[in-house]
Every structure is written in structure tokens, then in C-alpha cells.
């Protein structure tokens, strides 16, 4: 899932200054699950803003809505008309959601409410950790399901480096050395050969920016449908 965290309140307050009608839009998928931009967070932020405005004697109308996903047009469409009644929209989605919303609501100003952090997992209640950097060329099969690109601060492919101390990383005594983890698990699997082999430099062309992906099969289907019509 994509993990985000809410921006500091002061920053949000600053960024919505001057708008008299503000719509806060939550996203019901990844950022709901990581407790940053779901219905509850929308309600909390709206209440916080209302209180702050009241203290400062400002009259601002704040609307709230949470949709299933802000990265799909179909979910945004039903709120477009409603959103056009507002001076600005504050999106509690990840960066992707904010951008699609901005496109679809153009020219209404779109303000991000979150900082998008990483693709990760929930370690336990309230704790998330990064697991994937979307490098476009997955090597997890070689490394016992532990990603050196993400979990080693140096992202090195031929580890460990000299900073691996007793299974911990030199950058933080609480951080496991990804390469120690890889070594331990590979040795359990009897596949230590995998790290003896020298890994060639990664082909970062696969991580083209801006990345775009086309699935011909679906594309064709669409075209055929169009042709039939």
C-alpha cells in the first residue's frame, strides 16, 4: 500500500488561507488504511480547521466527502459537480490522487493534505515500513524476499558493506542490516550462492521517469469495441 502522513496543521492552515469555501476530500483506499486520509481523518481535519477559523473570526464553509479512490476517474466523477461549488479542494490522497483530482476539477485549485511517503507494509498497529521502491526490475527472488534496494540505506546490490555490525546497520542501531537478513535467510534456504555471485549494476532505465505502462491486450479490446460502435 501507499503510505502517507498528514501534513502539519499549521502548513495546511496556511495553504487554505483566503478560500471561503473549502472541500476536503478523503480517499478510501491506501491512505485510509494507513490512517492518514480516510473519513475519520477528514472529519478531524475539518473540525480542527473550523475551530481555528472560529477563533480567528473567519467565516469559511468547509465541506467533507470521502470517495473510494482518488486515482480512478470513475470514483471522482460523482463529486465533480458538487466540488465545483467550492473555491478550493483539499485532497487527503497520495500524490497520484491529488493530481488526477486536479486534472478532473481543473481549474479549481487543489491542495495536498498529505505527504506521500512510500510503498510499504503495516508492521503493527500504527507502524508502517517501506518495502518497495518501484525500481521496475525486481530482484527479490535472488535475495530471499528481502529487498536490498529498499531496506539497505545504500541500496547496494553486492552487500553487506563494512558498516554491518552484529546484524545492525551503521546508520541506526535499531535498523536491521538488510544484507545480514538476506544472508541469514539464504543460508536457511541453502542458497548462499546467490550472494556470492556478483550482481551487475542495475538497469535503471527500467525506472524511467515519468513512467508509463501500456497493456496492449486491454488497449486492443478498447479499440475493437470502438470499431464495432
Amino acid at each position: 500500500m501507499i503510505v502517507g502522513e498528514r501534513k502539519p496543521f499549521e502548513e495546511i492552515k496556511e495553504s487554505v488561507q483566503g478560500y471561503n469555501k473549502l472541500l476536503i476530500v478523503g480517499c478510501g483506499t491506501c491512505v485510509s488504511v494507513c490512517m492518514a486520509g480516510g473519513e475519520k481523518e477528514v472529519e478531524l481535519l475539518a473540525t480542527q480547521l473550523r475551530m481555528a477559523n472560529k477563533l480567528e473570526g473567519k467565516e469559511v464553509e468547509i465541506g467533507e466527502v470521502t470517495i473510494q479512490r482518488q486515482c480512478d476517474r470513475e470514483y471522482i466523477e460523482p463529486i465533480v459537480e458538487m466540488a465545483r461549488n467550492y473555491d478550493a479542494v483539499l485532497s487527503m490522497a497520495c500524490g497520484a490522487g491529488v493530481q488526477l483530482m486536479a486534472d478532473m476539477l481543473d481549474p479549481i485549485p487543489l491542495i495536498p493534505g498529505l505527504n506521500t511517503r512510500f510503498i510499504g507494509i503495516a508492521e503493527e498497529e500504527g507502524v508502517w515500513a517501506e518495502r518497495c521502491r518501484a525500481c521496475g526490475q525486481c530482484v527479490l527472488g535472488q535475495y530471499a524476499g528481502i529487498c536490498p534496494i529498499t531496506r539497505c540505506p545504500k541500496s547496494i546490490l553486492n552487500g553487506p558493506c563494512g558498516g554491518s555490525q552484529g546484524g545492525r546497520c551503521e546508520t541506526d542501531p535499531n535498523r536491521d542490516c538488510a544484507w545480514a537478513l538476506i544472508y541469514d535467510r539464504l543460508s536457511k534456504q541453502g542458497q548462499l550462492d546467490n550472494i556470492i555471485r556478483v550482481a551487475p549494476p542495475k538497469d535503471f532505465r527500467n525506472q524511467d521517469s515519468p513512467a508509463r505502462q501500456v497493456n496492449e491486450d486491454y488497449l486492443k479490446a478498447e479499440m475493437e469495441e470502438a470499431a464495432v460502435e
Partner: protein
Amino acid sequence: MSTINLEINGKPVSVNEGITVLEAARDAGIKIPTLCYHEALSPYGGCRLCTVEITARGRTRMVTSCTYPVEEGLVVTTDSPAVHKVRKMIIELLLARCPDVPILQSLAKEYGVETLRLKKTKHDDCILCGLCVRMCAERMGTSAISFVGRGVDRRVDTPFHVQSDVCRTCGACAFVCPTGAIKLEDITDNTPIPIPSEFDTRLGNRAPIYIPYPQAIPNVPIIDSSKCIHLLTGECKVCESFCKVGAINHGQQDEVVEIEVGSIILTPGFEPFDATIKSEYGYGRMPNVVTSLEFERILSASGPFQGQVLRPSDARHPVKIAWIQCVGSRDETCGRDYCSSVCCMYATKEAIIAKEHASEIEPTIFYNDIRAHGKGFERYYESAKNKFGVRYVKGIVSGIKELQQSKNLILEYSGEEGQKVQEEFEMVVLSVGLVPSASSKDLAEKLSVDIDRFGFCETDELSPNITSRPGIYVAGAFDSPMDIPESVMHASSAACLASQGIAEARGTMVAEKEYPPETDVTGEEPRVGVFVCRCGTNIARVVDVPSVAEYAKSLPNVVYAEEYLYTCSTDTQIKIMDIIKEHNLNRIVVASCSPRTHEPLFQETIREAGLNKFLFEMANIRDQCSWVHATHAQEASEKAKDLVRMAVARVVNLEPLHESPSNIIRKALVIGGGLAGMTAALGIASQGFEAVLVEREGELGGNLRHLYYTLEGQDPQELLSSLMAQIEQEPMIRVYKGAEVSALSGYVGNYETTIKMADGNTERIEHGVVILATGGVEYTPTEYLCGQSEKVMTQVELEERIAKNTLNAKDLKSVVMIQCVGSREEDHMYCSRICCSQAVKNAIKIKDENPDAEVYVLYRDIRTYSMKELKYREARDRGVTFIRFDVERKPEVELVDGRLQVKVFDSILGTDILLQPDILALSAAVRPQPDAMDFSSKLKLPLTQDGFYMEAHLKLRPLDFVNEGMYLCGLAHAPKTISESISQARGAVSRAVTVLSKTHLMVGGVVSVVDEDRCVACLTCVRSCPFNVPRINERGVASIEPAACQGCGICASACPRKAIRLRHYSDDQVMAKTAVLCEE
């Protein structure tokens, strides 16, 4: 008695004939200041402060309201400018006479008396109100004092101005004096003796009418008949004038009640050891030597010093405090050779709490052995040493001397090298032992129950709780010294035994309560009734109750609002029911005290009136208003109105909730067929329910199969075969051997479990409760050459070898035992509890068979708690040598030319000792089952840091899991003895029977419900629920089983999609309160 109608401050009032205007006004909640008025005395009209303006028969005049009787049509004004002016003048004149009296000063402030126009003539605090004189004459019948002199010389005095010999020193005169002018020493030459509070261990005082302690049962005041003036002289009865409901009964007598019962449980408890017997410690002579129970009260916030650590001699904060352990324990000289089991830990606790109260305190504990053998205790002891800096000194203090000036105490003890040390402390706490209460000896005699030489109840080691007389059982410290969780388990066990013989009669004497059908209020406009409580004077003294009731009437949807003297009284309950019907009310608010104590009562009442019990809300205008704002009457009244407005706002949003019956499968699953599991299965069967016993090994018995003799010399194998035979014959028990629980689902009353057989087949069974008795294992040591030499073995192996004769004690010249192998160290910071007794047991066994054998036990602390101490003593008497070692300097074991060589540093001799034993026995730790982690996650049960199963509450719920309907016993819980396993297993049965004995459970009501359309299956609820209730169902959304939901609301508040709603506490219902609070 006829009713009189009058008008006070423009408000019509109806009162009974014969009362005064003052009483009528006070009943109506109107405040009139008084000084010479007293409820228990006849009116006097001396201070004139209660002056009011009355209009009767067309004439207006000023009268004292305390003396003026009510009459029909009277018009009273208590707050007119004229009244105010008169009172102001009275106060000014009184203040001129007594300028130093606080109550007059505050009245002066209230009435705006700023400057004194009259000069004070002489120092006097007496305002001549005559309360003292009247009290002594009217109520005490003594007249020890009276008014003497005339005019300006008038004063209160005794006859002839000499100390009175008729005065009883009751102190009533001084008590009622509003100005503090009465000094008892002027009246009598007797000094009043305060009544020491028994509960505060005589460190504080109490009144003659008192509630013995905060949680007393019943929690009502009692009159001390040895101190009550009325019971001693026939006079007084002042208390009766104050109790408005007439609850005081001076004539109450002891009653003899006969009850027919099927069995009896004895729980007379213990008394602290009388520390004066150990006269060398100066208790009773030296004020700063206190017992541990006294210190417990000193630490208590409700104790004699309000929780401040002060020493009795001068109420100073002590810095150096010493605890002396084993006062009246492990001590033959005072006939108390047993160990009291609990003192090491309570001393540790007291030292930590003292330190938390005042960080400058330096606690020192003088001990023999630290016995931290309970669950989690070793870690607590370590934190006392390392985190809180409690100093532990090995060795007992030989005597205490008191310094004359400072009252500090000099303690004498022997230092580490055996030298005499003297150390000064400011306070000493004696850790007194547990002795059977004095009355329990009589009780035992009356019931023909045997007691031992100490006075504890006699029981057999392998049949705990069972006294010498059939049908009579014992629980708690009357059996032997034990701590809280042990007492709870022991008591539950006694309950199991006491009820199994009479299980058939269960429920036969219960009368079902019948309710009228519930009124359907759906679609009805809210019609709210508000009942405002005066709580006698508890609320009304501060809060203007009539105005609160009046205000409530003005609130939207409120159709009825009235005040009551006591809303919780029986007659008010009947009234509430009548009014609900009369006004067709569909929602009720009671503004009174705490819902924690009273909500169920009112809910019951409205249900009896046909309303759903959830259409009810309380406003706490007592605990959270009048009590905490006693000095701010005005603001408190406003707050009470706010609280009522909030309650009304919520109640109109409430909806009826219904609980529905959920069936209970009256069958128990017992996991684990060792001693605890077998005992539990038999217990369930003897209570009349079916049990399914699952054992993963091929035969029953578990660890019990490897035990051959006990500390007391009994035969565990006999117990094993008897249990197996009973189980075989018991038709209510189904046994699965070689089978494992592979899956468990469901909730209390309705579990479904899959059992995987040895042959790979599976079987599914349904049951209502689970008793977990999966046991533990003996640690296999890797240290001390264990496994490398057949001369090194564990205690269990040694026992087995001796019993099976593969080792003949007669061949042994020397045996060494090493304690704490795998216990009490980093990673395994717990005491295995049983190994010290095991070592003592095996040492005695060897000595029995071969008195010439040398037996050395190398130990850290010997933890033969309770009666096991007697065996420790016996072992020493019989020549077993105990050598203490430090964990930093553990013994070293070597094989030299095929011979064992053990080197240990003896701190008393200050040198290494070299031993060459024939065999070495290791007291190996008790470990949790190696697969406990996997199994516990399968059952969603929590484990402790050490891998044992975690109970719901370490002290108070040692037999329950947090998950309802699941219970635990045996080694799965923590290391324990055979006897303890048996009583814990029976205790778990008692707990399980609380569910099994019901035909159904009522479920629903205040539970969380999921809106499936909103749920994004984020798992937040699954992770945050403390009871493991929510799960993701087959539709991929969260679902919450109402029968298992505890209604805590954590999931509802955590849900990021707001898909979960806690019924009765939904957002709109809660927000309604805050919304009206903020309305302007």
C-alpha cells in the same frame, strides 16, 4: 397533620403544619444564614441572623425565621433590601464583639460590612449563641455549662468557674460552637481521648459513627456502641435529627439467623504477627518502628497522612527507611517456623511505592532469602534493585536502639565479612508475618475441623482445600500463608469442591423476575422526564436544586421535571414508574450521582415501567459537581444546569436496544491431559457437564508421570492412577489421546474446535468453554557438563533414578545440587518456584536412605515458601549443607580424571570450596511448552515475556483469559507444585461453570456494529481490539460477533472509514452533548 400553604420569595410553598419558616425555606432550597440554629436543638432566636420579612394579616414586620411557625397565607421575603440591611447591622454588631472569628468575617464580606464603626472592647470569640449550653442541657442531659453574669458580663461558664465534675468530656459543646470559642480544658480536667481508627492501624482517628473502610460491605455507617453517648447514657440522639430518612436505629440487636447449606467454605483469613513479641525491635516502644501493615496505610492516599510518607514521632519526611524481613516468620523462637510467603514481595512493593512518593527516600531491605517465587515477581525484584535503587542487605538485624533526641534508630547487623555494623535509619518497617486469626481457632473447634500446631487448617498435600470434616472446605490464608492470586485461585477451587456435591440443586431456588411488555416508542416524539436529586443535603447544600429542576422544564422535549430528596429511595422508584405512565414519558434523565453505581437501578425501574432500559441518561451533579465545587455554590448550580441540558440532549437521541438470548453449548474443552487437565475434566464432570479432554501424547499424565514422591512423602503415582481410573469410569468425559487441537473458532458459549487425531483424521466438536492446561517442560540444561557426563542429571532425573532403583543412595558418598539452572537470569528472568523444594525433597530422600551421604546444595536464595520452610529446616537439621553463591560468581564444574569437581565461592568463608561429588543434580528451570508461541496464536491467546500464558489480570483474575469463556491452569500459567496445579484446575472449573451453568447468555445491547458498505478491510479494528473479536469475514469485510464484543468502543473510535459504530455511543449521541454545551 394538615398542610399549610405560604409564599416564600414569591414562590408558593406547601409544608406540614408545625414547622418553622426557616425549615420551610430550607426545604424549598432557599438559603437563610444562621448561627444559633441547630437541627437537633429547640429554636432560640439568639443570633437574629435568620431575620426575614413577613406579611401576615396585612401587616409587614421583621421576625427571626427560626422561631416563627408557618401559618396559612403567610408571605415571606428572605432577600429584600430591608432584610439585607438588618442582617448587615447584626453582623456588624457581632463582629464588633468578636472581630477575630472567621465565620463572622466571611459573613461580613458577604453582606458588605467593610469598616467597623465600633471599637472592640475586649478579646472574646463567644457570640453568646447558646448552642453549647443548649446542647449540654437538652441533648446531653448534663448542664455542665450555662450562662452566667448579666448584660455585658454575660458569658458561658461552669458553676463557680471551676472545672466541672459532671462534664463527661463528650465534646459536643466544642463541636457545635460556630466560632471555636469553647475550650474543653476550661470545662473539665479530663483530657478527651481520640478514638483510634482500626483501619488506619491506629495511626489516625475516627468518629464514633463511621464507615469502617472505604469498600466496607455493607457500605453503611455503624455506631460504635462503646462510644455512643446515647447507648451509654440514654441521652443525645443528635444523629437522629440529621438523618432525614430515619435510618438510625439505636435499638438494633444481634440476630441469630439459621441457614441450611450443603457445604461450607472457611475463609477467616489471617492476622499480622504481633510485633511486640519480638521485643528486640522495639515495636510499641519506639514510635518510628512501624509494622508493614501500618506502613501500607501511611502510603495510602486515604490513609492517616493522606499518602505522604511521614514518620509517626515528628511527622517529618524520613529519608533512610529500613525494612526488616521475617518478623514472626521462619523463626522457631516465637513458634512461627514457617515462611509467610508474601513479605519479601510486599516489602519490595512498599519500598518502590515509597520511592515513587518521595524520590529522596533511600530504602534498605534486610532479608534472609528473597522469595520472589510468584509469577512476574523476579522481574519486579530486579527492577526494585536496578531501576528504583532499593538496597538489599543479606542478614537479619539483631536489635534496634533508639536515639533519644532525634528518635532515629540504630540497627545492628553483621556485614559482608561477618563484622558488626551499626547503621542509623530514620524509620524502620517490620515485615510482619501472617498468623491465623485468633477467632479461627474457636471456629475450627466449633466445626470440628483439625488445625495444625500453628493454628492453620489441616489439609492433605495432594487434596488441597479439603478439611478433616467432609463437606467443609478451606480457602485462603487460613490454609497457609498465600498471596492475592493464590488466594483467588484457592477460593475458586474451594467453590468448585463445595458446589460439586450439590450441583443438582443449582438454580432450583432462583425466582425469575417478570417484566411488563416493552412499549414501542419508535416514531414517537421524545417526551423526556427529568428527576433531579437533592441527595439529602449532598447535592442541595451546594447546588440550587429547585432552580435546576425549574430550568430542566424549559428544555426542549422535556415534559416533566421535578426535584426529589433521594431519587434512589424505594418510594421514589415507585413514583418514577407512576410518573412515566401518567405523563406518557418515553425517555428519562436522572440528575443525581454516578452512573457507575446507580444507573442499573434506574434502568431497572424504567424497564419495570415498560420502557426500554437504554432510553435513559444520568447527569452526575453530585460527584462531579456539588462534591468538587462545594465552595462555589453559584457556579456549581450553573454547571448542574449544563449537565442536565447535556443529558437531555443525549437522551432524545438514544434508541432502544435489545439483547437477545444466545445458546450455550454446555460442554467444556480441556486442552492438555496432565495433572491440571485431568483434574479440570473431572471437575467439569462432577459439576454435571460434559468434558472433552485432548492430550497430544499417547497417554494421560504429563509431567506427573515422572514424579514419584513429594516433599511431604506422598506418592504422586498413586494420584495419577486414581485420576486415570476416575476418568476412565466417567461417562461425561470423552478423552482424545495422541490428538491435537488444530483449529479453534467461535466465542463464549459457542466454540467449534477441530481435533486432529494421531491417524490423521479430524473431528469437529462444539463446546461452550475452553480450559487450557497445556503444561510446561523441564529445561534441558547445557551448562555444568549436563549431557556430557552421566553423573550430571536434573532433579527430575535424580528422583526417577532413585525411585526406579537405578541409582542407589547407599552408594553415594557425596552429592552436589546446583539451584537456579536456567532460572533468574537474563532471557529467563523468572523463578521456577518448585526447584528449591525439589532439591530439599531429594536431599532428604538421600539422607533417608543413606544418612552418611554428604549433600551440598549450592543456592542463590532458598525459596521454600509457606510450610515448605519446615522441610528446609529439617534438611539442615539432618546435615544437608547449603552454600550460597552469587550469580556473578557461579559454581564451576569440571571432570578431572573421570571425577566430578565442583568449585564454588563461599562468601561467608571468603574462599573457594572444592567439592568432589559422586553425582551432580541440577535444579533445572520449568519452561513453557516449546510450541507455546504457535499454539497461542492459533487460539489468539496472549503470552508473557517468558512464554507462559497470560491471564486476564495478574492479581484478580488469575484463572481467566481476557477472551471470555477461556480459562487456564497448571504449568501453562506458571511454574507450580502438584497441590497448586490441582487447586488451580479446580478453580478454572469454577470459572467455567459460571458460563456452563446458564442456559443462555444475553448478547447485544451496547456492542459495536460494522457498516459493511464502508469497510475497507484495513484490519485496524482487528489489530486494536483488546479482546480479539473483529475478524475479516468471507465477504472480505470486518465483522464483530455481538456475543463476544465487550462494548469498549476502541474499534469504533479507531476505524479510519468510520464504518464501525458503538451502539448507545454513536457520534450523534455523544456529540449532542457537546453541541448543547457550546450553544450560546
